[in-house]
């Protein structure tokens, strides 16, 4: 079907979800009271703000991921031609991985991959 299938799929997804949500809105009988709108934290009233600072570990892993993800994007065109290019492709990717691995080791020694 070609590129137009993407439009079809997006419309189909929105229509499916929209119809499902609207349908349930028509069927149900909703009541409103104060307790209903409170956050569900297993019955205990919530304390303080929710949007607080989180463990820095998540941020560090996201940064390391970013480095490797960019590398992964570089790898795709390489992977397509690797077989036809022969040994030169392998040598190049070994050099690329070597540099990357040094960076990885640096992050490891600095403790970026340790969960605190």
């Amino acid at each position: 079907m070609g590129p137009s299938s993407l439009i079809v799929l997006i419309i189909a997804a929105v229509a499916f979800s929209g119809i499902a949500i609207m349908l349930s809105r028509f069927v149900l009988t909703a009541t409103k009271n104060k307790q209903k709108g409170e956050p569900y934290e297993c019955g205990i009233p919530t304390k303080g703000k929710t949007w607080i600072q989180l463990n820095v570990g998540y941020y560090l892993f996201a940064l390391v991921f970013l480095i490797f993800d960019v590398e992964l994007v570089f790898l795709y065109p390489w992977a397509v031609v690797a077989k036809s290019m022969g040994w030169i492709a392998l040598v190049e990717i070994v050099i690329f991985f070597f540099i990357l691995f040094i960076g990885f080791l640096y992050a490891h020694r600095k403790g970026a991959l340790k969960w605190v």
Partner: protein
Amino acid sequence: MWSLAHIANEIHQWLNNTFNPTWTLIIEMVLAGVAVIGLFAALGLVLVLMERRVAAWIQIRLGPNRVGPLGLLQSMADTLKLIVKEGLTPDGADKVMFNIAPFIAMIVAMLLMAPIAFAKDFQLWDLNIGVLYVTAVSSIMVISILMAGWSSNNKYSLMGAMRSGAQIVSYELSAGLSIMTIIVLTGSLQVSDIIQAQSNGWWIFKGHLPVWISFIIFIIAVTAETNRAPFDLAEAESELTAGFHTEYSGMKFALFFLAEYINVFIVCAIGATLFLGGWMPLHFGSNNAFNNAMDYIPSSVWFFGKTFFLIFLIMWFRWTFPRLRIDQLLNLEWKYLLPISMFNLLLATAMAILGWHF
């Protein structure tokens, strides 16, 4: 010969003869949309039931067996129940984001259907960067999870979403690298090329050691990426109630639930396409009698058979391994899977250049 491609062709011919080209295109788009929605609903119903039946079978109990014959209508009943539940938005939530998140989850799940070859010549869009498209689109999933978790104004949701985000982005790397071995061996990103390259044997048979390693890594990585046990920290019931969708109820919850199962189906379909030959029937060398007998089984049956085998494998994991802690989870990825899959890619490249696969 009766096949999905044949039916699609017949419909296309008939529409072309009956209407003018513009109307043909519009009607085909509507038909494709309806077909995909139907597939979505059917997959949701089947997979939820399958999950429960497999769980029951592994734990030696009966599972749902009251509604309909063999409990086949159980998920229908569950859907009905979810329809009459109220889709509540908490007072403190970021209302816009809270309501958009399930839509994004569904759109991502739906968009991933485009490059999947369901049967011979039966594919919505055979784009020349099919595999790259899948990896790119599937990483949007994490945004919907983060949106849902952040906008809920619930500490459990936020924790679940952050964990889920860290986990998904981490395991995306080794999933990407294990997919890369197949791209190196095939030399193409197009899904139909990858399947065609397996016409004389699936990659798992002719790829030897590197493909076996990357298949195992791929299965582990996609189990983690779809947030399934043993990597289900994001919705660990005993710690976080339900993770990022704690605050969701009714149909919005059902949409997340559905998107989750569709994602399981899609990653298994990708795995079946890359490693197990997609719709290619099983062939053994020059054993002609056997090969011809296998050719008689329709290609769609082969595709769905392989996909559901992988889905079964992932469901089996759930009842076999205990849940990991988050530091163990990240250790497994960064200290074991990532170096192994990087080294494995070099091995696969050397093998592809030497021509050791047949």
